[in-house]
């Protein structure tokens, strides 16, 4: 029983209720797209204001208190309401079931519940931030956050707490789906790397987020009841909060990067017309990153007062976690070697990812060294490091995936030259924004400071100039994607000539994804002399 020729998941049923009460993973993905895009731009507005403030050494926009609230808002929104959900809830939701040959996720109603929890949490926190916000930084360190900070901390934290359940349920859904709903013949080693990456991400979502939930509850208990769990004036240990917070928040950064790595692993073979080099290494490195990523959180606390013995252990483990990431970079590079490279927009974003992630990752190794960290911790060096990974890495990966799967999701093509221009603009804007920050940090500029000595101004001006270029690079897709939906040429089932089950069904896909459940006979990325050997399935 399959859909008529022109029925897609977009037009199969109409009306607002068919969207808000949908259980179709593809529609839920679009619901998430809307939320993710919204929060990305809110966080981006905060970033714009921050970079504007930092143009002059003294106050530019307002008080230091306003500045504190701005960077807190930027961090909270970008971490919890953009980066963590970004690829898993949009591309994971849409593409993963198709990649494994399934008709939907294991628990579709749970999936919809996840979206509602995400939106509820996001709106609660946004309300808190717009009412006046919080000035603690996104890390909520105690006892400042629990005893001294003014603002809407309880509301903001509660929103994050609610959205945490969205993460947990999504991760749970993906894990169970990958274990139980693979099509016949789809063994683990025939799965595309994006599925492995999303699976690894989901393991982190499921095991780390509950710890955040408990940490935030204890934070709220201390704030509301004025009891001293983490506060030294009442005998508590502020470092305990940091341990609990970072036990989640460090794996969280792997939640943010692993899906992007998965996207890049999909894109590089297609646009090099070559099988992925070292498939087994790449998939097991994804798992290794997820596991070892749980062992390194103390590197955020080297100067916090943690025992030196623990710092040594965490430093060593942090060096270890870089190894699987580096292996992946080598494998992507080896994939491109002697390939037929095409420079479409997805590939340009992938190039950007590989270069910028490498720089970010290397600077992470600098930070893992205790003596260097003592010098540059809490400076712009750290800010630059994580933005290279999160923006140069994760966001580039998000845009790469967006451009790669756009034809499949919408059934439309976008203007390629505008897309390439946006990618290149974003790359240059990004580097101009964040490279000066490495220098700033090394020279001693602290993070989260509104005012600074005049000799730092030149670097801040360069950085802000870069930010304005980066903003254009991020805004451009809004326009050409909108144009593509309204006027863009229709896409075929497989415009990129890629392998993978998602390309064997039409664009946009029918509601049940496949007319008949496909049987998988070949491993992924089977390109021979630049052309794909297609998987079994219907077209």
């Amino acid at each position, binding site marked *: 029983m399959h859909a008529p020729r022109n029925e897609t998941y977009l037009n199969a049923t109409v009306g607002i209720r068919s969207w808000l009460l949908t259980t179709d993973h593809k529609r839920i993905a679009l619901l998430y797209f809307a939320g993710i895009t919204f929060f990305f731009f809110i966080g981006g507005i905060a970033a714009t204001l921050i970079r504007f403030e930092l143009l002059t050494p003294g106050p530019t926009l307002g008080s230091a208190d306003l500045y504190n609230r701005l960077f807190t808002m930027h961090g909270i929104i970008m971490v919890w309401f953009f980066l963590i959900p970004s690829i898993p809830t949009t591309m994971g939701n849409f593409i993963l079931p198709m990649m494994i040959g399934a008709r939907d996720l294991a628990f579709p109603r749970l999936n919809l519940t996840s979206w509602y929890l995400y939106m509820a949490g996001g709106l609660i926190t946004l309300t808190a931030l717009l009412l006046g916000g919080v000035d603690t930084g996104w890390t909520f360190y105690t006892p400042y956050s629990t005893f001294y900070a003014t603002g809407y901390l309880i509301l903001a934290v509660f929103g994050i707490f609610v959205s945490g359940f969205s993460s947990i349920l999504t991760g749970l859904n993906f894990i169970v789906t990958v*274990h139980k709903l693979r099509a016949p013949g789809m063994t683990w080693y025939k799965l595309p790397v994006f599925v492995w990456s999303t699976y690894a991400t989901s393991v982190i979502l499921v*095991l780390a987020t509950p*710890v955040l939930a408990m940490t935030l509850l204890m934070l709220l208990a201390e704030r509301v009841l004025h009891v001293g769990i983490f506060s030294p*004036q*009442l*005998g508590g240990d502020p*470092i*305990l909060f940091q*341990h609990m917070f970072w*036990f989640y928040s460090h794996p969280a950064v792997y939640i943010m990067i692993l899906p992007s790595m998965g996207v890049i692993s999909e894109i590089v073979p297609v646009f090099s017309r070559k099988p992925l080099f070292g498939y087994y290494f790449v998939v097991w490195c994804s798992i290794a990153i997820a596991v070892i990523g*749980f*062992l390194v*959180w*103390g590197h955020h606390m080297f100067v916090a007062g*943690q*025992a*030196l*013995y*623990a710092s040594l*252990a*965490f430093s060593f483990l942090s060096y270890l976690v870089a190894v699987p990431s580096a292996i992946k970079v080598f494998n992507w590079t080896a994939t491109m070697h002697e390939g037929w490279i095409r420079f479409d927009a997805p590939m340009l974003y992938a190039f950007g990812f590989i270069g910028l992630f490498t720089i970010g990752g290397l600077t992470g190794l600098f930070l893992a060294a205790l003596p260097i960290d003592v010098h540059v911790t809490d400076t712009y060096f750290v800010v630059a490091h994580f933005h290279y990974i999160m923006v140069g890495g994760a966001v580039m990966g998000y845009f790469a995936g967006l451009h790669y799967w756009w034809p499949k999701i919408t059934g439309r093509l976008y203007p390629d030259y505008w897309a390439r221009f946006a990618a290149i603009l974003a790359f240059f804007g990004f580097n101009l924004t964040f490279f000066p920050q490495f220098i700033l940090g090394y020279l001693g500029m602290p993070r989260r400071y509104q005012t600074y000595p005049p000799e730092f101004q030149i670097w801040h001006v360069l950085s802000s100039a870069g930010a304005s270029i980066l903003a254009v690079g991020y805004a451009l897709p809004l326009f050409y994607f909108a144009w593509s939906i309204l006027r863009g040429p229709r896409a075929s089932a497989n415009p990129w000539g890629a392998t993978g089950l998602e390309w064997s069904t039409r664009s946009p896909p029918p509601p049940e994804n496949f007319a008949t459940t496909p049987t998988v006979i070949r491993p992924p990325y089977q390109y021979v002399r630049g052309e794909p050997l297609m998987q079994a399935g219907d077209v």
Partner: protein
Amino acid sequence: MTAGTIWRCWLTLMLLLAATTASAFVPLGSLNLPVSLAIAVAKALIVLIFFMELRASRPLVRSFAAAGFFWLLIMIVLTGADYWHRNDTRAPIDEMPLPSR
């Protein structure tokens, strides 16, 4: 799982409960905590293996069950690394008593 198994397990759990409470009143010094935790682990394993039917479950289910506890162990051990060694080097101010409020 049969009724017989269930009630044999129940009896074992009751005996373990009696043992753990009794052992708390025996001065074993720093061993009191490991003993009571070991008994707790034994009780939990009985519930997991018999009542929750891990005995009859596939390896995948067992690995899911184990994963949560294993990850918790990571958290306890690595934070413990800090707290066990926090006082390795103490400054004079650390020797002063905490203010009583």
